[in-house]
């Protein structure tokens, strides 16, 4: 029996049941045990393990896309396929790959979640050292810790109250909020989100400054680039597009299929978009895709001499 075809998985326990919590605890213990064992392995053994797991993980996705997928429903003679019975080895493997996808995707999501833990650990390590050793600018680290702790406490209490307490659905509306919801709103919407938006809006200043200082018509190429940019900018300005198109529409023949109709701003932008912009982006994307494929192959086969594979 294939692992991925198991109907009831090891984890299929009732939500919040003690059996599930026990299994989660066991998994954490086993996980820490494996991590500790890996740390104790000699560097060569560790590398072999990492290379092996990387190859297997990559192999799954290669097979997922390239292995023939099982045909649903019918045998070669047209009769219905017996439930769960593959016709040959190729189809058996095809079924296995298909069935394993939820498990592999869960692994991918869980591993990606570890990045958050890694980030928190890294922040605590770097800024904790700075704070306790009173290194330059340690005050900023103190503010960071204060903000992080406040956000975590308020965030979790709010999360618990809005999901696990009686009448929690009412807490969606501000009129029913308690002090924790107001605190969460202040920290999340009032501070974090606004600072995020403020940081992003700074880009506008850089764009203006850079365009003013760097955009000079020094060559034919720069002139073409500037003219094209101007047309694209004008096409984004409704009032300019409206006036331009109106002016063109008054040229005899423009609205009845005459050549002048091609000079409306909408038509010029469409021509640039379809004949210059899109092909150029497709070309760039194609190059990026080939680069990503090459890099993916190098990572999959552990040919990159950096990171964990170099351990």
């Amino acid at each position, binding site marked *: 029996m294939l692992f991925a075809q198991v109907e009831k998985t090891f984890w299929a326990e009732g939500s919040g049941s003690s059996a599930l919590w026990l299994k989660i605890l066991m998994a954490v213990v086993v996980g820490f045990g494996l991590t500790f064992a890996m740390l104790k392995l000699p560097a060569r053994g560790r590398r072999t393990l990492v290379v092996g797991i990387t190859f297997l993980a990559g192999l799954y996705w290669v097979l997922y896309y390239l292995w023939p997928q099982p045909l649903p429903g019918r045998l070669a003679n047209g009769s219905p396929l017996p439930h769960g019975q593959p016709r040959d080895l190729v189809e058996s493997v095809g079924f296995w790959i298909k069935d394993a996808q939820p498990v592999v*995707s869960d692994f991918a999501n869980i591993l990606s979640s570890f990045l958050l833990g890694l980030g928190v650990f890294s922040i605590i390590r770097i800024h904790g050292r700075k704070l306790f050793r009173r290194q330059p600018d340690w005050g900023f680290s103190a503010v960071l810790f204060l903000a992080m702790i406040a956000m975590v406490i308020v965030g979790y209490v709010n999360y618990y109250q809005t999901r696990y307490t009686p*009448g929690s659905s009412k807490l969606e509306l501000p009129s029913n909020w308690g002090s924790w919801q107001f605190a969460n709103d202040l920290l*999340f919407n009032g501070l*974090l989100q606004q600072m995020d938006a403020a940081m992003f809006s700074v880009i506008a200043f850089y764009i203006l400054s850079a365009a003013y200082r760097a955009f000079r018509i020094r060559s034919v190429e720069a002139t073409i680039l500037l003219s094209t940019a101007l047309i694209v900018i004008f096409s984004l300005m409704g009032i300019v597009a409206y006036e331009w198109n109106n002016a063109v529409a008054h040229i005899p023949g423009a609205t009845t299929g005459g050549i002048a109709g091609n000079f409306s701003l909408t038509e010029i932008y469409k021509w640039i978009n379809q004949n210059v912009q899109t092909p150029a982006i497709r070309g760039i994307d194609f190059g990026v895709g080939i680069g990503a494929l090459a890099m993916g192959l190098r990572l999959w086969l552990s040919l990159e001499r950096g990171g964990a594979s170099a351990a």
Partner: protein
Amino acid sequence: MATPDPTTPKSLGEKLQSLPRGILYLILVICTSVPLFFNIPVPNEPTQAAKDLFNALNSLPAGSTVLVGSDWTVSTRGETGGEFDALIRILMRKGIKFAVYTTADPQAPEVARDEIVMLSEDEKKHGGKGVERWNDWVSLGFFPNAEATANLIAADPTKAFGSKKDVKPDGTLGSALSSPVLKDIKTLTDFKMLILVTGTQTSTVTIERLSGKGLPLGMMVTGVMGPETAVYYDSRQLNGLCAGLKGVYDMETLMDGTFKGQVNFGRGKLYYPTLHFALALLIVAVIVGNVGMMISRKGKA
């Protein structure tokens, strides 16, 4: 190499090329903030891509379910926030159920939830029905790995969303799959459409994994992402596209033509004049710099 004497007065050309940064920034602040205080009507002709997206949404049958990818936060709210508002208002008015998921940013689910609640209350205030969580929409939360999640949604949405829970009207938690929104969803094509509102590269991930599988796709992206996403609209992998602030205003303009007498205009109409002033300033700044360069060259010749 000889360095210019700092005591030598600058020529007009040099002055025009080296306006103080602070002055430029001050003008930008004025140009972008003053129009917000005035209601300036701007004529607008929606793009074909926005029309296609609106028509696709408008033709969805009432009671059907769509999947909404919400990969935006407040940092791009001027564009994606307006797009999300327009999308949710259309879905509410058409009676279409929706499930919201996120693959880009852990902050995004809370931003989306708050926005939906606010929009629902606003619709009710203006005589609309609004939406009720669980019965009309569900929040599926955050998925840390966009690629794996998109693949799984394509293969089996019940597995992708099987572990997700949401709050019922009575305040208890229930499996999102048992909600009226998702109870009839068994395969990808049971969703009538997927609309992704994003300020990140999850657009590419979604198109790569979900296009060509029988599910109509619509994208609502930032202006910066517009050209690269338009490539997929041109190749007919997308059923419609709304890009940037112009896209928001396009959607609002189209809504105004369909949902008469309701609240149709929001961020698009409010911010579009600001975009005009900002772009005009950009053009003027580039012209000033180039005029300065030409004057300097003539002076040296």
